[in-house]
């Protein structure tokens, strides 16, 4: 199969899953209720899937590393910290917690503000050293994690249940208004990233070759890092931390395609991501009857694949 046919194959699979997801068990009595619930969910899944896949693919290319995910930038930990902090200080009944719109805008903009701050500081101090950025992200990430667990220890047990809810990604309470903003953002970012696919191909040759071939490396890496953090912020604020999925889908896309061209890799990783999320959500809803959050399923399968990847890379 050539690459275009492989893409069509994944388009067909995801379309079938979308149709199953929307139309299964539908009858004339429940159709309005189900459709109003299911369609936003599908849109949320597509947006999240695409953001996670694209951000991970771009991130792995600019770091030249196949086992990193953007979670190393510490944005997921920041999200959990923000949520825990709000519940800890204001209580779970406060409007910021209960109103999804407000929560989305607040946590989304805080994450974007945080990454802007880190980039600004680091790029000024330590020109173009991406490893330094990763280290800083890792340290700040664990700082937020420790602060969150500290608050989770002190918090009222009933409030802790709310915190726990937030710690896992979920597609069960998607707000339609929020969905429009995020769809628009992700759509713009997708088009923007697709303009850079050829440059990303060159970036995968490494820093020195990229400069040799006339790419303004520092500038492009900065731009791409901003795109990555925007995508992560949107998807995390929308459904919760789920960046681990990126590792899974990006590497699966590389296995399936055996090409270096981002034009194809990104399309397929986005589609696999949608398939994985839809499949996972179907399992959660129809098999496990909502008894387990989707991120547990994704992390379980992703973890297994990660171990396989480590063993396989070790052999070569």
């Amino acid at each position, binding site marked *: 199969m050539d690459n275009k046919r492989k893409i069509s194959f994944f388009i067909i699979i995801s379309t079938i899953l979308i149709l199953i997801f929307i139309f299964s068990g539908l009858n004339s009595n429940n159709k309005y209720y189900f459709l109003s619930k299911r369609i936003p969910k599908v849109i949320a899944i597509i947006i999240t899937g695409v953001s996670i896949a694209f951000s991970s693919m771009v991130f792995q290319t600019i770091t*030249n590393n196949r086992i990193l995910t953007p979670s190393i930038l510490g944005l997921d930990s920041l999200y959990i910290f923000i949520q825990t902090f709000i519940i800890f200080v204001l209580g779970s009944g406060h409007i910021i917690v209960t109103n999804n719109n407000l929560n989305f805008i607040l946590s989304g903009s805080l994450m974007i503000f945080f990454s802007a701050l880190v980039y600004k500081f680091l790029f000024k101090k330590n020109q173009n050293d991406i490893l330094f950025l990763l280290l800083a992200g890792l340290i700040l990430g664990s700082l937020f994690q420790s602060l969150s667990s500290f608050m989770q220890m002190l918090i009222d047990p009933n409030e802790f249940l709310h915190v726990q809810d937030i710690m896992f990604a979920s597609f069960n309470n998607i707000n339609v208004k929020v969905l429009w903003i995020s769809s628009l953002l992700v759509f713009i970012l997708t088009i923007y990233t697709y303009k850079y*696919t050829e440059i990303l191909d*060159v970036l*995968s*040759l490494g820093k020195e070759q990229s*400069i040799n*071939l*006339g*790419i303004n490396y520092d500038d492009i890496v900065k731009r791409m890092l901003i795109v990555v953090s925007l995508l992560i912020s949107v998807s995390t604020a929308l459904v919760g931390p789920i960046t681990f999925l990126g590792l899974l889908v990006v590497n699966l896309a590389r296995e399936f395609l055996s090409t270096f061209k981002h034009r194809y890799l990104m399309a397929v990783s986005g589609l696999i991501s949608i398939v994985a999320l839809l499949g996972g959500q179907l399992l959660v809803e129809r098999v496990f009857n909502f008894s387990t959050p989707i991120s547990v399923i994704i992390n379980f399968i992703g973890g297994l694949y990660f171990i396989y990847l480590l063993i396989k890379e070790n052999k070569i």
Partner: protein
Amino acid sequence: MIEVKEIVKQYGDKNVVDNLSMKIMKGKITSFIGPNGAGKSTLLSMISRLIPKTSGEIFIEGKEIGEWDDNELAKTISILKQSNYINIRLTVRELVSFGRFPYSQGKINREDIKYVDKAIEYMQLRSMQHKYLEELSGGQRQRAYIAMVLAQDTEYILLDEPLNNLDMKHSVEIMKILRGLVDKLGKTVIIVIHDINFASWYSDYIVALKNGKIVKNDKTNQIIDEKVLKQIYDLDFRIQDIESNKICAYF
């Protein structure tokens, strides 16, 4: 012509390249020699804008390196570093096609294909052009990288220790190719090289560096001299003429 003026590279408070000026002639092979830590690779990396300079100026064709458009510069000067580990699986042809990026921005046209074919032909890689890089031997891989630089079609070709990890046969092969680039295709080649006899046999000019400074910059037969070499390496040399080329023995 490449002209370097009072260039400095500072790491911490050590000047790795220390207030160095020189000119590099067009249409010749110029070799940078010197002991480890002399600043050869750093100098080469600065000339090819892989690393920023601390101070000083570098003029390429009369224009300061910072004023060049990145893409235009990539059509004028190319650099090949000694370690070329690539994270992705590429065939020889795909790698060579990357050399056309400054011209085609990834969308290869017929003109580009012609250049790629020519580069592959010139480096005698036709039979293995669809093989993956990791299937090739060290010498073949080095040739593939040089083919990529050839496809890039630049006036200046900079190579950092191109003979690294190659045996004698492949080293000679690569040096002959570089000589051919200058003599047949009219390119300007600048290399960092450790083997002083290869430098003596194949280069037109030698720049001898030590502690970030130029010890001597002259025609090859002026540098390959017992006194000059002793000054650079702190070693005793004995030099003999073979076919009007100077060959050094050192112990």
